[in-house]
Every structure is written in structure tokens, then in C-alpha cells.
């Protein structure tokens, strides 16, 4: 089984601040971590590898320092890391990012299963995983909370829904995005850390993956950010009390008043 995990380096959400002047994320002095959902995607891939054999490749698109999350992945059980890095990728939205990752997957080739975190905690879009599946024309399941069965041919998963879950069976190759309920990521092992320190990280540029310059980075990104701002805290809350029926009546009256 050849597994691929897409990971992203993000600022630690415990310490998120906006620059009050530019309204962009203040990244100086903020610790960079592996996107928490991606840790679960990696753990799931490693668990499947331990069960069925095979390899886990981890790929990230990002600046040179994003190499750190690849080494961390190797310490946690991945076999190799690929850093897709090029100045031309800067400013990519989810459209351009999924294009870049798709070209990377095509370049590396031959994966049976691709795993991504549900979303990254910086952009919070949850679009890159599904976007990548669409570009590669792969069946996919988003928000997977459990792998029920997996073989060389197919995978059976539970997709988390608001009111329970959907049971899906996907032929391989396929792509999954996972939620945190799927597993408990392991702590990086000592031998893994030693291996990670020495590991060769493969680097791919835009040219290496044969990317069309018009489809990557800012040029390939249809999303335009008009304004980023911290919303003013709103104090005009109203709390209803009484029995459930009374509260519903109050709520309906309140909504009607605003119609």
C-alpha cells in the first residue's frame, strides 16, 4: 500500500494575533506547528501501513522552513518527506494549492490512498483535500471519523455527519480527509526522531512538477481577499429563560420583530 499524506505548517492557534495595521496574521514570534488535523491524517496512514505494509510519503507545499513538519512526520512513522517549494507558489489560495498538490501527486505517482486533515487551522477552508481529489479525479470522503476496513482494493470509512455518520466504501485509489475523532496521534519515537534528523527531504520546484505558471501562486488564485478584520465584540445579547416552550415563544416573537 502506497500512502500519501498532505500536511501544512501553520501558526500555533494558541497564539493567533492580527497585525492591527495590515490586518494580516502576525507570524513573527508565533510558533509554527503541524496543522493538528494533519497529525491525525498521518497517524491513520501509519496505522494502515503497520497493518498492510507499504510506505507513507508526506508532502507539504510551503516555504523552506516547512521542512520541519516533514521531519516531524518522519519521526512519527512516515518513510519520506517531499517539500514542494517555490517563490512562484506564494499567495496561493485553495484553488492554486490543490492544483499544485495535484501536479505533485502526478509527478510522484502511484499512490493508493491520499490522506489530508479536514482543514488547516489558519485558513479553515476545508477545501484543499476535496479540491485535490477532484483534480485527480479520485473518489473521496471528507470528515472521516473512522476507518472500518481497508484492503489493497478498497476502504470502508465512516463519514461524520451532524446527525450520525455515513458508511462509505471507496475503491482505491481514493482520498480521505479526517477529523480528530479518528485516532490519537502517537508521540514521535526516539528512533523516529533520529531517523528524521538524518532523512533526505526531496525538494520539488514549480518546474519539477511541470506546473503552468498561470495556475500557481497569486496568478493562479481566483480568490481575492478584500479585507481582513477582527469583528467588534457585540454586547447586545439576549438570554431567554423559562420552560422550553416559553423560550421558544420568546425566540419566535423576537425573530418576528426583526423581520
Amino acid at each position, binding site marked *: 500500500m502506497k500512502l500519501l499524506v498532505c500536511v501544512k505548517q501553520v501558526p500555533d492557534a494558541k497564539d493567533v494575533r492580527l497585525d492591527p495595521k495590515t490586518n494580516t496574521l502576525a507570524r513573527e514570534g508565533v510558533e509554527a506547528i503541524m496543522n493538528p488535523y494533519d497529525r491525525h491524517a498521518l497517524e491513520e496512514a501509519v496505522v494502515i501501513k503497520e497493518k498492510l505494509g507499504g510506505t507513507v510519503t508526506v508532502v507539504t507545499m510551503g516555504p523552506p522552513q516547512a521542512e520541519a513538519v516533514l521531519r516531524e512526520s518522519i519521526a512519527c512513522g512516515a518513510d519520506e518527506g517531499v517539500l514542494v517549494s517555490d517563490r512562484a507558489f506564494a499567495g496561493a489560495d485553495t484553488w492554486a494549492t490543490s492544483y499544485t498538490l495535484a501536479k505533485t501527486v502526478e509527478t510522484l505517482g502511484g499512490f493508493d490512498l491520499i490522506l489530508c486533515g479536514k482543514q488547516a487551522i489558519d485558513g479553515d477552508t476545508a477545501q484543499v483535500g476535496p479540491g485535490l481529489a477532484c483534480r485527480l479525479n479520485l473518489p473521496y470522503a471528507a470528515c472521516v471519523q473512522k476507518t472500518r476496513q481497508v484492503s489493497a482494493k478498497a476502504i470502508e470509512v465512516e463519514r461524520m455527519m451532524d446527525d450520525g455518520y455515513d458508511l462509505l466504501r471507496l475503491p482505491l485509489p481514493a482520498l480521505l480527509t479526517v477529523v480528530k475523532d479518528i485516532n490519537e496521534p*502517537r*508521540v514521535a519515537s*526516539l528512533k523516529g526522531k533520529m531517523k528524521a534528523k538524518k532523512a533526505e527531504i526531496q525538494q520539488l520546484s514549480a518546474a519539477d512538477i511541470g506546473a503552468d505558471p498561470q495556475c500557481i501562486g497569486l496568478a493562479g488564485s481566483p480568490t481575492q481577499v478584500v479585507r481582513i478584520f477582527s469583528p467588534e465584540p457585540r454586547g447586545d445579547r439576549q438570554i431567554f429563560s423559562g420552560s422550553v416552550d416559553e423560550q421558544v415563544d420568546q425566540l419566535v416573537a423576537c425573530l418576528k420583530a426583526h423581520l
Partner: protein
Amino acid sequence: MDYLFTEQQQMIIDTAREITNEKIIPVRAELDEQNQFPREILHDIAKADLFSIFVPEEYGGLGGGCFEIVLALEELARGCVGVATSFAASALGIFPVMIAGSDEQKQKYLPEIASGSRWAAFGLTEANAGSDASGIRTTAVEDGDFWVLNGTKQWITNGGESQIYSIVALTDPSKGARGASIFMVEDGDPGFSYGKKEDKMGIRSSSTRELIMKDCRIPKDRLVGRRGTGFITVMKTLDVSRPGIASLGIGLAQAALDEAVTYAKQRVQFGRPIIAFQAVQHMLADMAIQLEAGRALVYAAAKHIDNHPKDMSKASSMCKVFATDMAMKVTTDAVQVLGGYGYMKEYPVEKMMRDAKILQIYEGTNQIQRNVVGQELNKEYS
């Protein structure tokens, strides 16, 4: 203070810290409350390769020594001494094989101990053999290609949870301590069973249980070292393991100090955070001073022991006494700093104080350790 750790030592510390923060601290109160053995956490510790640190490289370990164990245990104890004790007991149980075992025994046991796929335990204590270990009654009699063991071990850490036990038994009862030998007994051996499980004041997540051997027949090759050398191996084992207990005191005291200082900065009385009061500050200062002194002694003793000196016992006993008496004092003071809140189970310091007490008792009471130091002094100055 910077102790100039090697890269590998720092890696061990970081890994143990991650286990503590991610796997131990979130569940420690529940494990304590429910008297629940931390099986899952030991599996996590195994996956992180921490069981391999004290095993020689040729048997799949990292080849670390006493100092590396001390570093790992300190971090684990910061989370929970019960969990850290369960981890440490596996090292204690396999030390006799590392010290006196045959190549075949090392080949058989050490790789699985290093991978954490099996855990060990150490069976010395009996109802009438505590501080006076020579009072053991368990016997081992040769019978063709087998040894037959009879007796009951008491208060055995990891009892019923480990798969491999090093058992001290008398092979020549008439010779007393010189007639003791060590045997490897395995879970499932005929005549080997588990008895009473203790309900303890502290380290409640660890398992403390009776081991019962009733005509327990084991193959001849389970004898560790030469017949009659059991007590020498026991003493050597404890010399190497005691700094580990000392480091549990260091990690525990660090956790208690962290809680106490954090609380003292937040708790406001008489219009000020209580850390602003000199009475509280001095308490915290004394806790920090004692802790740093203890850490320095434990590290120095562990490094000293790793050089295999002749006066191992003295260093080992000194650091065990100092660090564990210190941990009792610091955890008690932490409860005092937190006042009424400290006495409540909602805050972690009451558990820390309960956990601290055993450190002064097990692996040789602190009174016995003082005997060792005193006897060594007597010899040195003769």
C-alpha cells in the same frame, strides 16, 4: 539550570515530556480515582521507544545508562508517579538479567523489553522480608531439568500486569543470604498465580500485588547468574535503580512547585496575589532551592554510577534519601500554598502529596538508605 545534555539526552527528555503532557496529565486524576493500571500509556511509551533507553544497543536498545533513565523518569513523574513507577518497575525487573544473565537470557528477554512488547517486574519483598531482605522464605528446589519454586511475594509493583518476573528465592536455605538465587518466572508458568491486589494511599494507577508460587515448575535455564549469587545481584540491581526513584521525587517536586507558583500568582487575598507576601515567597523559594539541590545530586549520582565505581551504593542511597525526603516536603508545602484548594481533589497537589510518601518507603526505606551511607562512611574512615 543548564546541564549540557547531549543531543540524545535532550531527545529523551523531550519525548518523555510529550508523553507526559499529551498522554498522562489529561488522564492522571481518573487513573488515580479508579485505581486503574495505565496500560494504554505504557503502550504509548513503548511506541515512543522509551523502554529501549536502558537496553544495550546489541539487543535493540539505545544503550543509555542510569542517567538516561533518570532523565526519562523525571519527566514522566512530573505527570504521574504511578505511571512512572509502572514504567520504572519494568527496568527494575530486567536489571538482574542485564547484570548477571547469560547471553541466551539477554537474547531472549532484552529485545522484547526494549520494544515494550513485554514488561518486567521485580519480586523480592515478602511478608517477613522488607527492610531485612534476608528474611525471605520462598524456596527453589532442583528437580531434574526444572526448578520448583514455592512461596509468596508481596507488594510487587506491576504484579499481574507484567509478563516477566525476576524472583528471588532460596536455593540453599541453610546459607541464608548466601543461599539466594534469582529466577525468571513468566506469566502462565505452571503453579504461578497472582494474589491480593493492594488498595493504596498513592501511586494508585500502579499495580501492587501478591505473586504466588505453588510448585511452580520452570525450566533450568531460568536461573539468573550462578546459584547462590542472588543477593549480590539484588544489591547491584538496587544500586542502579535507586537514582530512578530519586528522579521520581525530582519530577514530582517540580510538578508541585509549578502548581504552587502558578496558584500563588493567581490567588488574590488582602487585595494582592499571595505570591506578593513574603511568607509565601519564602516557602516557594525554599521549595525551589531544595528541588535544584536534589536534582543536582541525583544527576551527579547517576553519572557517577554510569562510570561503574566501587562506591556506587553510597551515591545511590544518598540521592534516594535526599530527593525523596525533599519531594515529601515540597509536595506538602505545595498543598499548604494552595490552602483549602490544595486539600481538594479538584487540584492536583493533594495527589502529589499522597504519591510522594511511597518514595520514602519503597526500594529501601530512607532509614535503610541512611544505614548504607553510614556503613560506607565507617568503612571509608577505617
